[in-house]
């Protein structure tokens, strides 16, 4: 009796295991952080195209509109000749009543809109100048992305060059550098940044420079550590023997070896830069208004909180937190994947 096996149809269970395997592999990838960061960067880049309103121009007649899920509230008010102080909530004067119902007369009881509801026009509500919160958050993403890219570019490059030099040359160069890093770690950062920005003039350039000043030491220290290890490796010695110049060894041979570490440090530093920028904005030393930055939006919305207008400061804060959470998760994942040794550094 011949047993014919022409091919085994994958059993449903087998397919499930396969799917399960894919799911497990996917779970290890930082998908959610990457999606969040992509959304932030894309909305920053395409802000003028996708934001429903002008972020800086408000409509004073549409102030304090709640997010879309709020339904309007009505109250019964009596039409009177003149509203008394105590009767603000239960009375309405004739002139206003006529607008609602042209046939209103003194003594009538009318159903009046007391609190506007949310609408699709302002999905996340409007602030106290009648500006769309969502549009401002989208434009705020733009500011955060620019800040992150530029400070990382300037501060990172400077830090890398200094770190390479300190690690390679050692001696007094190293000593001076490391003491600078120590000093930076032991001064009240935000305070000095605040004083710098206010004194030198509150412009975008100054803010970016100040932020760059604050992040370079971390890069310098990390790169220096890497260089110290790499410079004794065989391939560097061979490059030296074959007559490569110092600059060539530093940038072509050693620098690529530090890139893994740099990616991790950069990701984690972006989170710090975003928090620092929003703190400066919050304290009034950020990008000058009316340009929307997340930090200053929170500051503006703060005064209205007691009146129950919670949305204009809550949403920008959520935007900051989500972005920084995503950066931290991605940074952790990159560290575990690219450079497990960094784990102990925290």
């Amino acid at each position, binding site marked *: 009796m011949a047993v014919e096996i022409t091919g085994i149809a994958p059993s449903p269970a087998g397919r499930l295991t396969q799917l399960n395997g894919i799911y497990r592999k996917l779970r290890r990838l930082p998908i959610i952080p990457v999606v969040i960061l992509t959304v932030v960067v894309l909305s920053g880049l395409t802000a003028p195209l996708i934001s429903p309103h002008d972020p800086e121009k408000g409509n004073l007649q549409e102030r304090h509109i709640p997010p879309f899920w709020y339904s309007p509230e009505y109250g019964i008010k009596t039409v009177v000749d003149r509203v008394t102080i105590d009767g603000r909530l239960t009375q309405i004067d004739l002139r206003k009543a006529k607008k609602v119902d042209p046939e209103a007369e003194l003594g009538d009881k009318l159903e009046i809109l007391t609190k506007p509801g949310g609408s699709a026009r302002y999905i996340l509500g409007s602030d106290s100048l009648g500006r769309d919160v969502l549009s401002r958050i989208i434009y705020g993403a733009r500011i955060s992305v620019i800040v992150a890219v530029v400070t990382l570019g300037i501060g990172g490059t400077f830090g890398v060059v200094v770190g390479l030099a300190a690690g390679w040359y050692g001696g007094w160069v190293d000593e001076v550098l490391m003491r600078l890093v120590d000093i930076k770690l032991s001064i009240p950062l935000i305070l000095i940044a605040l004083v710098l920005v206010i004194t030198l003039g509150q412009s975008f350039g100054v803010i970016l420079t100040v932020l760059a000043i604050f992040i370079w030491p971390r890069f310098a220290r990390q790169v220096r550590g890497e260089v110290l290890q790499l410079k004794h490796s065989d391939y560097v010695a061979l490059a030296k023997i074959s007559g490569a110049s110092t600059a060539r060894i530093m940038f072509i041979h050693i620098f690529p070896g530090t890139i893994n570490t740099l990616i991790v440090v950069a990701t984690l530093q972006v989170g710090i830069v975003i*928090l620092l920028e929003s703190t400066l904005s919050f304290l009034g030393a950020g990008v000058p208004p009316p340009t929307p930055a997340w930090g200053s939006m*929170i500051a503006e919305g703060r005064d209205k909180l*007691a009146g129950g207008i919670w949305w204009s400061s809550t949403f920008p804060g959520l935007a900051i937190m989500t972005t920084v959470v995503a950066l931290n998760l991605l940074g952790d994942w990159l560290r575990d994947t690219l450079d497990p040794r960094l784990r102990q550094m925290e």
Partner: protein
Amino acid sequence: MQKFLARRIVLAFVTLLSVSVIIFILGRVSGDPRHIYLDDYSTQEDWDRMGEVLGLDKPYWQQYGLFVSGAVRGDFGRSVKEGRPVMDVILERAPATLLLGFVAFSISLLVGVPLGILSAVTRGAMLDRFGKMVALIGQSAPPFWLGIMLMFLFAVKLRWVPPYGREDWNSILLPAITLGWYYAAANLRLIRSAMLDVLDSEYVKLARAKGVSNTGVILKHGLRNALIPPLTFAGVTLGALVTGSLVVETVFAWPGLGRLAVDALFAFDYPLLQGVVITFTLMYVTVAVLVDVLYAYVDPRIRYA
């Protein structure tokens, strides 16, 4: 050990000096201080006399010398805004900041350390995930926003505590929790990872093999060693608590040094600002040196290095 300490102390002085240079230069860059003191009705003689009193007729390096020698004696001049010596204002405000910092630091320890231990012990379980959440929020949410949200929830909606100021004993709760959360998160992460390392070590396995109880292993063998990394971090923590007060005091209108600094800055009250910045830096470096001493005391590897 002595060499280590000497280095730290020298570094502290260098730090103070560099901050004093920065703040002095910024004070001069921002314009002639006489513009703040004098008004449109002052005469040229007033202007010159003021210059002499403030030492503005001397070269810059002498002016800096005067500034430093004044600062060493605790004399930063008179506050423009308050019209009295800067030192008086600072001494009046300092206790509030120190109290806030102390309570926040205690919260960060009381929350961070136990949660860190529990997270490490129950690795991967619900509690560990909860700990991770707390840590992630603490490290990612801007403290000023966290403060505003807490204020909205507990002061505006629930009315459990006053929203701002310093009247009742419970007005300190919200600012201290806001300030402490970040450091609780940091402590939690540090303790957790140090604890995981220690629990995996040979001597812990030996202790378990000997029959030491689980609690005994965790508290005696584990925690004692796991405390070292957070302790190193404590210097940064305590120092940064001082700066964190800048933001939190602004949010909660807490009458401390942080708010004083922000107010002085926006009022262009330079003498006051210089005084506060130097005071903050002094607190910062003092704490750093103290923690280093403590650290060396706890960890023999440093003491005998």
